[in-house]
């Protein structure tokens, strides 16, 4: 299973996600990337993230994405 940071790096290889605390403000993820990321997270963890949870606040940094995964039923 891939880690969140591996998935992020596959989607946007030009950025260093480990060095950012706010992917949205830093311009590293836009709304289209979020949709791609949700699809990759769903597949990787065998979950289905709700459309209502696809909001920028849930994709700000690694911690908020991991919290979203837990909320969506992903097992560590």
């Amino acid at each position, binding site marked *: 299973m891939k880690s969140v940071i591996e998935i992020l790096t596959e989607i946007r290889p*030009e950025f260093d996600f480990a060095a950012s605390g706010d992917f949205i403000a830093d311009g590293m993820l836009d709304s289209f990337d979020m949709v791609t990321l949700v699809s990759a997270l769903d597949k990787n963890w065998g979950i289905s993230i709700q459309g209502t949870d696809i909001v920028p606040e849930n994709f700000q940094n690694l911690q908020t994405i991991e919290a979203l995964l837990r909320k969506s039923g992903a097992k560590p």
Partner: protein
Amino acid sequence: MTPIQTSGEVFDAVQRAKAGATAFCTNFFPVESKLRGWIDHGEMFVELRDRAAFFFRKDRDFLRFYFCAADGAALQREIAAWPGLKTERVVTDLVGNESAVNNLRSALEPAGFRQHAQLQRLMRTGRPESGADGLPVGFAEKADGPAVLGLIESLFDRYGEQLPMLYEIEAAIENRQILAVRNDSELAGLLFFETQGLASTVRFWAVAEKFRALKVGSAVMRQYLKIHDAVRRFTLWVNVGNENAIRKYRHFGYAPDGLIDHVLASGLGST
């Protein structure tokens, strides 16, 4: 349609459509600062429907349509029932991969929406190259606003390409987001961009007809790349049929990244 007075009304309407949604669908991803500008200028309207919220932005002689719906069926049923569709020119954008877009298209086409244009996103990654300087390029100034608007309106499709209003151009000039090349005092070319953090988007790159072949476009693009040396991701949207522009963008390192924007329209007739 009800005029929107605050951005809170927008978010309340979105939440209302999301409540109990099983397959929430939307094409509305508002950037707070832009949304505030549209509201302040009286351009935003809302239509609350059963399990859906429709947002309309008045843009020149038509309405730009954004939707939030609990599922595709709610979208299809409620847009078909909205009376304004019979009297207004309405344009909407569907962005994403083919399967996601096709589901939404099949919800909108029964109501009369038809494809008007198709845009593709081009991306350029890595550090900008330092090219040779050409013609002198500077930032547009306040007095350039009407000329910038005139040049953009003369060269781009107002339905397909989300053209800015004069107040948006004036704000962009103030924020130093528009580079310009002048010939004597006349605006020969421009590049209008939006930069956030490590990403930058070209919104418009334009050269006036009579100044073509003078390398105005190259000069302004080189300057744009030069002043964005910290940016790692450059994007833009271009009409898939505009082969001339696509060739020029490729010259500067841009390439399609697979994202497509289907622009659908209703009521345009022969405009």
